[in-house]
């Protein structure tokens, strides 16, 4: 079983209301050192067998067509992840 991790973030010029809500709450817990918070999305895609170049290419295509909207988001990374590094809680 192989695993591909895709990270997606809102483009920096797009307001991130969720990140702002988190940023607003952190000081209430005494975390005053963080001046900004931006929240993104992580997708963990599982395949049978190894993560081949073909699998990575398919993951990249899925990331660009569905997992992200290029109008507002960037695909920050698409990478194979060693399986033990991903926890399935």
């Amino acid at each position: 079983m192989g695993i591909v991790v895709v990270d997606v973030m809102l483009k920096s010029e797009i307001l991130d209301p969720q990140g702002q809500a988190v940023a607003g709450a952190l000081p209430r817990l005494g975390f005053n050192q963080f001046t900004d918070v931006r929240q993104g999305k992580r997708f963990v895609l599982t395949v049978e067998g190894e993560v081949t170049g073909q699998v990575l290419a398919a993951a990249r295509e899925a990331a660009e067509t569905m997992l992200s909207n290029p109008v507002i988001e960037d695909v920050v990374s698409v990478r194979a992840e060693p399986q033990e590094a991903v926890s399935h809680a």
Partner: protein
Amino acid sequence: MRIGVVTFPGSLDDHDACRAVRAAGAAPVRLWHGDDSLSDVDAVVLPGGFSYGDYLRAGAIARFAPVMSALIPAARGGLPVLGICNGFQILCESHLLPGAMIQNDHRTFICRDQRLRVENAATAWTSDFEQDDQITIVLKNQDGQYVADKRTLDELEAQGRVAFRYVVDGPAAPAPRRYDRFASRNPNGSYRDIAGVTNARGNVVGLMPHPEHAVEQGYGPSLDGLKFFTSVLKSVVNA
């Protein structure tokens, strides 16, 4: 005259959209997200709601529903399509309309009677309005902030493709309106106060507020919504 209304899992306003179609004198045709065809309808409404729970992004999963693979080429070919609220989000995700919708900048759900200015009265869905008419219909959304890059926004403005803008009175508002929390700013943070846009051809229109909730005496803030549906009847007859 048959107007299709698509139901996705999580659509909420499909029944009201059907009522509005009927109130305008046309026959509503229920379309299902899993349909492969549009059943030869003359126009399509994508209604409001939370298709697929708004998971991933509002409209992102609905955009890949089977019915959309029939609708997208038909819309590109000139079929009149109106996207309301979630329907607008779906049209943006489908790239039939430019830009995208993100969460309201004030991070709260909003539900209110909203004044709009009609800025393009030449589309398939707005021809019964006059340019610069002010109308009042219901606005209710979580992800209603219209965003696009500057080049896209400039292009929309230059081509007259901003169909509706939120009316923002500012300090000049008459007294009761001055105390409205959205007197001096638009209600969801939309760039350039944009409430709705059209494609270049004028057959595809999307807007955040809900015309289908303003078509019947005694329900909703006005009857202004009816003109969306009477407009499309004329555009189809004249086509």
